[in-house]
């Protein structure tokens, strides 16, 4: 039964990768990264059980905790970028 769930998650990963490759905007790619991160957490937790070593859930826990830092960094990057554009537009 774990196999069915694993296959479902792997197919979703492939779909997310398609979205990342197609774009068209960069935000679609960030969305794909975020989806991929969630799916990785699920995949790692299921594979830990498939292997019969549930003590390796630490990995999925690490991803669950820090995976959204990348998206927050994107928000900060875009915010700084637009602020810079605006201040440059005001200068001349």
């Amino acid at each position, binding site marked *: 039964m774990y196999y069915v769930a694993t296959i479902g998650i792997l197919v979703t990963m492939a779909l997310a990768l398609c979205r990342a490759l197609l774009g068209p905007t960069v935000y679609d790619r960030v969305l794909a990264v975020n989806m991929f991160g969630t799916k990785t957490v699920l995949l790692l937790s299921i594979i830990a059980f498939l*292997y*019969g*070593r549930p*003590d*390796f859930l630490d990995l999925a826990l690490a991803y669950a905790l820090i995976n959204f830092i990348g998206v927050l960094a994107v928000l900060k990057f875009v915010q700084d970028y637009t602020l810079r554009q605006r201040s440059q537009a005001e200068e001349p």
Partner: protein
Amino acid sequence: MEIFGLFNYWMFVILLMTGIYTVMSRTNLIKKLIGMSIFQSAVFLLYISMDKVDGGTAPILQPGAVDVIYSNPLPQVLILTAIVVGIATLSLGLALVVRIHEAYGTIEEHEIREQDRV
């Protein structure tokens, strides 16, 4: 699964060459650094592929268990440290690129060369 016996190594080779190709054909310095990190990841993949033993499990001993096959811990030690060293050296490279951008106003290799020639 016999046909996939060498698949990991082939993927390693293709990834390695993707990295090399990026470094050779691109002029953007950050792109070159990303290419180098792909190259590095390919090497990680080679080492980790070599640690797998059929029917094995990760080399963290299970108390009380007998007849458990463990995968090879040695490549894991080498790669574990290499990943952190990799990010540290990558950021050193990025710092150099930032300084180049401040000095030349560009991070394209051919434009830097042109400015040097003048």
